[in-house]
């Protein structure tokens, strides 16, 4: 089955340190990958996407993600974490559906906690 996995339920990092939130995917063909962030009691907000081109994608709020085809990964990174980055992060991959549509399938989410 085509899917995306987030192997860590929670990531803890100290403020000012670099952070990584992991995502691996399993799809046939070229993957279209997305990262979203969800703050408490809010909907998801789009951070960045990889469609094609440069393997390092830059997004909102200083986040970036590195696409690695050989490892089938799309890890989210930030050089220096802020307490305000504490939130739930979702990775998603576009998956084909019957009828020719492609719908994002989401991972289970990773809770990022940045300690002061």
């Amino acid at each position, binding site marked *: 089955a085509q899917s995306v996995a987030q192997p860590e*339920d929670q990531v803890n990092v100290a403020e000012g340190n670099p952070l990584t939130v992991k995502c691996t995917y399993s799809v046939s063909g070229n993957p*279209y990958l*997305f990262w*979203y962030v969800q703050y408490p*009691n*809010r*909907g*998801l*907000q*789009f951070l960045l*996407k990889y*469609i094609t081109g440069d393997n390092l994608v830059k997004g909102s709020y200083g986040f970036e993600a590195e696409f690695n085809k050989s490892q089938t990964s799309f890890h989210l990174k930030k050089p220096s974490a802020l307490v305000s980055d504490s939130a739930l992060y*979702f990775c998603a991959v*576009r998956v084909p*559906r*019957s*009828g020719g*549509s*492609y*719908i*994002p*399938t*989401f*991972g*289970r*989410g990773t809770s990022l906690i940045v300690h002061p």
Partner: protein
Amino acid sequence: DVKVTQSSRYLVKRTGEKVFLECVQDMDHENMFWYRQDPGLGLRLIYFSYDVKMKEKGDIPEGYSVSREKKERFSLILESASTNQTSMYLCASSSSGTTWNQPQHFGDGTRLSIL
């Protein structure tokens, strides 16, 4: 800025009731989606629509139906609410394109409790 508005932030209903969740987007997006979010399970797709009056089942459509009579509005209907439908419901929209590579825009969710 794209705005996706869900009619209620919190809703409490009783078992067996027919429940309507409403979602409106203001960016003329072709695609609209309903998800439910449960701890540890992430987002699961209930239904989506790629045009007015068009709908397709997602991964967990049982017990739900949808309606899209106008482009900007997508309604989720719980035909006979049950306690296992207590959840956070998220609506999203996205613009179309032949490669479906546009990001989704989400509402703030409706936290539904079925008693």
